[in-house]
C-alpha cells in the first residue's frame, strides 16, 4: 500500500502550522507502518489533547481521540481487553509528561505492549505557547515572560527509570532513522517510548528566536549525535539519538493470560 492509503485524505491539508514537525512525525510513522505491511484494522491509535493529538483524525485506523494526558490509560483498556491489537499512542510533551506523567510512568512500569510516541516540541502549541515540562530552564514562553525557571525532564532517562523496555530518540530532521526506530518500536513486545524532537516554529521557535522551521531542523542536525559517538565525548551538550534500551521482559497482557490460566485451574 502507498502512504496515502493509510490516511483520511478528505481532512487534508491538516491543521498543523507550516513547518510543524508533527506532520513529519506522522509521515515517518506511516512509512514505518507501511514497511511492516500492517492491516489498518489491526491498529488502534489513541491520542490525548493538543496539537499532537490531532494526528489520530488523519490516519485511517481505529482512532480514539481522548482527553488531555489520559491517552495511555485509555490505550491500556483497549490493549488489555483485546491484546491482539497494535496500540500506537502519539502524545505531546505536555500531554505525556505533565498532565499525563503519572500514566506514562505506570504504563512503562507495567510493560504493556503499547508504542508511545512523545512528539516533543517543548511548548503547549494549541493554547498559544506556554512552557511545558520539556521547555527547559532559561527558555521563553507566554507563561514564562521573564524566562523559565522550571527544569526539563529528560524523556529518555525518565522512561528508562520507569521501566520501559524500548526507549529511543530521534528528530524530525533524521527521518530515515526515525522511521526505522518507529518500526522497531512497533515490533517490540512491551512498552516502547520514542521521543521525537519536533519543531514548533510558530511558538517555541518565535519566542526563543530560533528562526524558521528550516533553521530549527538545522539545529537538530547540528545539536544531536548518535548514541556513544566520539562527538558526544568531545561535546557533552550534544543530544544523543538512537535506541537507548531494547530488552525483553514479560509483557503485561501475556502475564495476565497466565493469571487467567491460574484462576481457571483453581475453579
Amino acid at each position, binding site marked *: 500500500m502507498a502512504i496515502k492509503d493509510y490516511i483520511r485524505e478528505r481532512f487534508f491539508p491538516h491543521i498543523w502550522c507550516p513547518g510543524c514537525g508533527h506532520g513529519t512525525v506522522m509521515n515517518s510513522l506511516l512509512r514505518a507502518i507501511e514497511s511492516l505491511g500492517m492491516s489498518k484494522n489491526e491498529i488502534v491509535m489513541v491520542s490525548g489533547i493538543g496539537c499532537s493529538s490531532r494526528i489520530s483524525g488523519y490516519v485511517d485506523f481505529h482512532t480514539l*481521540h481522548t482527553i488531555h494526558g489520559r491517552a495511555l490509560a485509555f490505550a491500556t*483498556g483497549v490493549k488489555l481487553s483485546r491484546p491482539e491489537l497494535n496500540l500506537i499512542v502519539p502524545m505531546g510533551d505536555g500531554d505525556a509528561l505533565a498532565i499525563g506523567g503519572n500514566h506514562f510512568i505506570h504504563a512503562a512500569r507495567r510493560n504493556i505492549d503499547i508504542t508511545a510516541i512523545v512528539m516533543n516540541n517543548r511548548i503547549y502549541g494549541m493554547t498559544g505557547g506556554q512552557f511545558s515540562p520539556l521547555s527547559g530552564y532559561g527558555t521563553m514562553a507566554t507563561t514564562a515572560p521573564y524566562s523559565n525557571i522550571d527544569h526539563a525532564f529528560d524523556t529518555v532517562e525518565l522512561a528508562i527509570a520507569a521501566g520501559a523496555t524500548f526507549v529511543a530518540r530521534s528528530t524530525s530532521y533524521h527521518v530515515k532513522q526515525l522511521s526505522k526506530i518507529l518500526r522497531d518500536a512497533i515490533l517490540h513486545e512491551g512498552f516502547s517510548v520514542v521521543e521525537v524532537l519536533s519543531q514548533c516554529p510558530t511558538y517555541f521557535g518565535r519566542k526563543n528566536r530560533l528562526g524558521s522551521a528550516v533553521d530549527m531542523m538545522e539545529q537538530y542536525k547540528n545539536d544531536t549525535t548518535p548514541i556513544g559517538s566520539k562527538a558526544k565525548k568531545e561535546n557533552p551538550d550534544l543530544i544523543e539519538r538512537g535506541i537507548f534500551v531494547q530488552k525483553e521482559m514479560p509483557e503485561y497482557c501475556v502475564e495476565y493470560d497466565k493469571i487467567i490460566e491460574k484462576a481457571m485451574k483453581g475453579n
Partner: protein
Amino acid sequence: MKENIKFVQGNEACVEGALYAGLEFFAGYPITPSTEIAELLSYRLPQKGCRFIQMEDEIASMSAIIGASLTGHKVMTATSGPGFSLMQEALGYAVMAEIPCVIVNVQRGGPSTGIPTHVSQGDVNQARWGTHGDHAIVTLTASNHQDVFAMTVEGFNIAETYRTPVILLFDEVIGHMRERLVVPVEGEIPLVQRLRTAVNEGVDYHPYLPREDGRLPMSDFGDVHRYNVTGLFHDMWGFPSDNPQVVHDLIRHLVDKINNNVNQITNFKSYYLDDAESVLISYGSSARSALHVVELLRPRGERIGLLELQTLWPFPDQLVRRTCEHAKHVIVVEMNMGQVLQEVRRVVDQPRKVFLANRIDGVFITPRDIRNIMRLVQGKGV
C-alpha cells in the same frame, strides 16, 4: 432446584450482579468504602477468562474502562467520594462519545477526604452534574442487597440500550452491611447485549447515527469498520465538527435519548401509598429506616406510605408529583442537606408541604430520627 443463597456485603452483591450481567472488564483503584468490589473482581474475573486491572488512579480507571468498552466488552469501575471526583472528566467523555459503561460510587461523607468509613448520601447532585457541560445521566440506587443485585444488572442493561454511562450510587451502609442475597438463575433477569452493526465491510458505517428506534449499533475496535471516537462535538462518523447544527443536534440527542425515556428508566418501589396522608420519599440505605417507620405507624392507624426511588436520575418528575398530589405533607428522608428534597420541591404543586428528615453526621439515620422530625412536622412537638 437448589437456590443460590449467599450471605454477603452489598459490595459483593454488586459484584454478583455485575458478573450476572456479563461484566468482562474492570479497572479500579482502592478506596474506602468500595474497595471490596475491586478485590472480589480481581479474584472472580480471571476465573471466567475476563480481565481486571488495578490502575494508577481513578482517572486512569475510568479511562481504561472506556477503552475496553470500545473493543466490545461490558465494563465497570467502582469508587467512592474523592475517586468519583477524579472520574468526572472521563465520565463526561463517556457521555459525549456514547460509551456503555457502569460506574459504582459507594458514597462516603464529604467534601474532600471527609469521613471515609461512615455513611453519607452527599453525592446525588455530583452524580447528576459532576462533569461539566449540559448532559443527561442515569443514576440508580438500592436499599437492600437483592435490589443492589437487580439495579446492577439494570445498570448494565441501560448502559447497553442507550449507549451511556450509568452510575450506581450506593452508600457505605449498603456496601458494608451483610444480608441475604438470592442469586437468580441464568435467564431469570433478561440481559441486554451489545448491539453491533449489521453493516458489512466496505459499506459506510455511521457509529453516531441512531436507528429509527433511537439505538446506535456499535462496531468493535479491531473489527472491519474503522471510525473516530472523540470528546469533541462530532458528526455521524465521529469526526470533530463545530458546525452549529451538528453541535445543536448532538447535545439534543444526548439529553433526549435519556430524558425521553424516563418511564423506561425509572425504577421505584411503593409502600402503602394509596391512601397516604404522610408520604415519605427516600432511597438507598435511608429508605430502610423510612420503611421501618411506615411499618411501625401503619398498625397504629397513621396513613403513612413510602416512595422508594431507585432511579435518581433522570429524576422521575411525574411519578413524584402524582404520588404527592393528595399528601398533607411529604418528608424526604436522606443523609445529606436535602439534595433529593430540592428535586421533590421542584416537581410538586405545593413545595411548602415538603420537609427534610436528614442526618449529616456520618451516623446512619434511624427510624427514631425520622419519627422525631415527623412529630415536629405534624405539629405534635418533641
